[in-house]
């Protein structure tokens, strides 16, 4: 069951995603936080901006539904934040509940990998020296 799938500027909270997937059948809840780090490629990062295409939330929902439909997955909750983020802020929050832990680890990892590949969201890094770049953009 997909219980949460959102793209917004709201501050993200892992505990809230874990609570959202809580279920009496769930023996395992695996969560993931994608966090803004202070370095990339050896350079010091001070700030990040995430921009989403208008379809980003629909794509997030589509990917999360695929994971939620797997037979051993009980519940999925996932959100991506966009806008200006600081070091330490959560950009991607996900939680997956299953009966047993191996399935939860695998489903959460697959969810994050699929989102990395398919979610139309972009990231601009501002470095300590004032330069900036759109990540992955040639």
């Amino acid at each position, binding site marked *: 069951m997909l219980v949460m799938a959102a793209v917004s500027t709201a501050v993200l909270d892992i505990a809230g995603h874990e609570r959202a997937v809580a279920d009496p059948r769930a023996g395992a809840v695996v969560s993931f936080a994608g966090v803004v780090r202070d370095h990339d490629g050896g350079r010091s990062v001070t700030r990040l901006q995430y921009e989403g295409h208008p379809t980003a939330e629909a794509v997030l929902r589509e990917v999360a539904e695929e994971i939620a439909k797997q037979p051993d997955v009980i519940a999925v909750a996932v959100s991506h934040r966009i806008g200006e983020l600081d070091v330490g802020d959560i950009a991607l929050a996900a939680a997956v509940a299953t009966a047993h832990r191996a399935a939860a680890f695998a489903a959460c990892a697959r969810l994050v990998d699929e989102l990395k*590949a398919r979610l139309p969201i*972009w990231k601009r890094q501002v470095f300590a020296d004032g330069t900036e770049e759109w990540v992955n953009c040639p």
Partner: protein
Amino acid sequence: MPTVRFFAGARAAAGVAEEQVPPGLTLAELAATLASRHGERLGTVLGAAAFLVDGQAWHDRHTPLPAGATIDVLPPFAGG
């Protein structure tokens, strides 16, 4: 006339968020037109970008784009 919308690094390379282009171009002709308008940096981004035409993925480089279409230029994603 078709409208092109540039996102993220494509917008940075184009210097505009959107613009109109002549009707009847193929995707390959559109890319060449945009690169000649805005420079080789945008040309490089277009080489790595994905395209949506009226919200649907569009891979065909040789069929004319629909009249009045909205073409979204999506550089490589970097979410998470």
